[in-house]
């Protein structure tokens, strides 16, 4: 505070007698005031707003929201388990394909039904969807021999490492936030691509075409279609969402209990941490939130007639 009150004496441009009672300071630049330039008024930072937009979270609602993440983790764990079962011959490819087809058919039925319930006026072209599905699986079948030999020359360690990285990418970029079911966001598609790539890499470890086709078709159903269904369930009912999370959790646990109990323990601990500890942590850390708003903030222009303003 070396230069507290730069000019104690009335400044030359003010020209007002020091004896005169000071008129109150005003936050204006065009008037000459008898206050020094570094004067700090009581109104300093009066317009400062702290944490104006902060929303207080409720513990159980955060717990409920966290199921989005736990469901996704569970689905990845289940996929890996199914690959291991297939790899060691505990599960036949026929069974997997049948399961996948039945599951997809049931899921589609539910999706179709709930869509007509929610938005009755929308006209889905079921024929088109069906045609697309048949075409897609035929193409996949045709590509199977190529996929099989794709990474023949690569060692297994590389494959496992690559798979882990790709699934982590899938986990990180998955579109958790948006509730929309039509438009595909960029990071969301990146995540789906990572998962499909991981499945291709894993599938190429198999010796027969049918195995490769089984895993690939399952991967497409599991990583591209299943998240859409999960989103749908979440938007319809909370109870259904909880039930789905629980079913996924149980499936993952039972599948992995045959493979490695250690992983089961880690998985269960992780899930507990994610579902019950993390929400608490988030709420606790909220107290350190310090959001500052004031007149210096960039104003948001309000424009009528429904036109949107894009930043930059």
């Amino acid at each position: 505070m070396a230069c507290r009150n730069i000019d104690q004496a009335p400044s030359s441009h003010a020209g007002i007698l020091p004896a005169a009672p000071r008129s109150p300071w005003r936050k204006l630049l065009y008037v000459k005031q008898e206050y020094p330039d570094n004067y700090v008024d009581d109104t300093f930072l009066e317009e400062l707003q702290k944490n104006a937009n902060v929303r207080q979270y409720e513990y159980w609602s955060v717990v409920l929201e966290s199921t989005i993440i736990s469901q996704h983790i569970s689905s990845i764990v289940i996929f890996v388990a199914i690959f291991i079962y297939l790899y060691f011959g505990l599960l036949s490819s026929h069974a997997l394909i049948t399961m996948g087809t039945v599951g997809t058919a049931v899921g589609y039925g539910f999706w179709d039904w709930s869509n007509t319930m929610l938005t009755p006026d929308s006209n889905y072209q079921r024929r088109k969807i069906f045609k697309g599905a048949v075409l897609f699986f035929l193409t996949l079948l045709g590509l199977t021999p190529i996929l099989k030999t794709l990474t023949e020359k690569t060692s297994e360690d590389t494959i496992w490492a690559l798979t882990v990285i790709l699934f982590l990418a899938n986990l990180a970029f998955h579109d958790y936030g948006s509730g929309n079911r039509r438009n595909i966001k960029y990071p969301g598609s990146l995540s789906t691509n990572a998962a499909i790539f991981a499945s291709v890499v894993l599938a190429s470890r198999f010796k027969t075409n049918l195995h490769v086709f089984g895993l690939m078709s399952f991967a497409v159903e599991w990583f591209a279609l299943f998240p859409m269904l999960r989103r749908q369930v979440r938007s319809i009912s909370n109870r259904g969402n909880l039930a789905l999370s629980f079913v996924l959790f149980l499936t993952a646990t039972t599948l992995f209990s045959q493979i490695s109990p250690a992983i089961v323990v880690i998985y269960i601990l992780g899930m507990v941490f994610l579902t019950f500890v993390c929400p608490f942590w988030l709420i606790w850390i909220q107290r350190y939130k310090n959001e500052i708003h004031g007149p210096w903030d960039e104003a948001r222009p309000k424009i009528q007639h429904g036109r949107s303003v894009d930043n930059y």
Partner: protein
Amino acid sequence: MVSDFFYPNAGGVESHLYHLSQRLIQRGHKVIIITHAYGSRTGIRCLTNGLKVYHVPMMVVFQAASPPTLYGFFPIFRSIVLRERISIVHGHQAFSAMCHEAIIHARTMGLKTCFTDHSLFGFSDPSSIVMNKFLKFTLSDIDHVVCVSHTSKENTVLRAALTPQNVSVIPNAVIASRFKPDPSMQDPNVTTIVVISRQTYRKGMDLLVAVVPRICRKYSKVRFVIGGDGPKRIDLEQMREKHLLHDRVEFLGSIKAHQVRNTLVRGQIFLNTSLTEAFCIGIVEAACAGLLVVSTKVGGVPEVLPRHMILFAKPEEDDLVEALDRAIEMIQRKEVQPAKFNDELKEMYSWVNVAERTEKVYDAISQTRDPPLIERLRSYYGCGVFVGKLFCIMIALDYLFWVYLEWILPRDEIEPAPKFPYKKFKKMCQRADKEDELQPGVDSL
């Protein structure tokens, strides 16, 4: 004075630096400007009244700003400062890495430092957060800070965690005589609204796009003159196409500093749609040129002009239209006499006043005691848990680098530059002027 931004680059900071330096020279100080090289403009240049400009060779990365070099700038900076026998280093503009570096090095060398902030920053977007960290770093150990408006002061105090007493508010100024109103340039049959700004999102061009057609539909005798250029230009032109306003809206493209006045005097109303603004010299210039100002009420704008010169609006389409309605009515009924604004503003915003007030800041900081190095380190240490330690390392290295420079390039070996004889120069100018008057036919050069 140190800043990345100086002529030939055009803008508010540049002209601020130039005019402030000129006035300080007139008051008997020695002023030099350090900036980076602009294309072929390199080396040392002398401007009016012996204002020396050092164009330091540096790479330019983005919009005339140089990248941070940490210590790369120190040797040349030290040579310049010793050569010119500088006692106060005054940095300008938070965007300028050069200014931050100069302040740190100057503190290491034991010089007095001062910093002027010309813009406002939020606290939420990533670029602001990084910028604010930088600012906190350099301003931890500064002697004094100058802001251009009270809002800007509040903002800077929060951003850099400063003591408010160490921050002065000294507004910008205009040369009122250069913005003389000229009612004969106006079209008496129509009301002309002038807009001059960079056409970017931050200047509220989306609002302008929404407002122009509504005003044109409402009044048949209103014209728009829009000057400036930028990424939002396309939106504006699309608006003109869509609403078939080719005869009502005129685009001038980018306008040079000396053409601004001639553009301004064509209109009766000046419209500013900025979304954020520390001071907004544009509205002062417009009022000087005899225009009624309509502006969004953001940042430091409410502090700048007296109430009878300006109409405020919220940054909303409807409110702006309403404010323009009022303004057009006032102009058509001749309720205001904008031509008189010039005389009033001449008193309010003059560079002499700014220089005087800046001088006071300089006087005050030259009397302060220099803190020892350990004291400086302590203030940097307080910046943050991790960052404080990092800053301390950087400052300690800077200090060691300075000791090394003192050893490799001793002070005594740097030849001081001769002082520009300003008084003699002024006398010569006066004599030349007199001779000119006596012999009108002879060119004095």
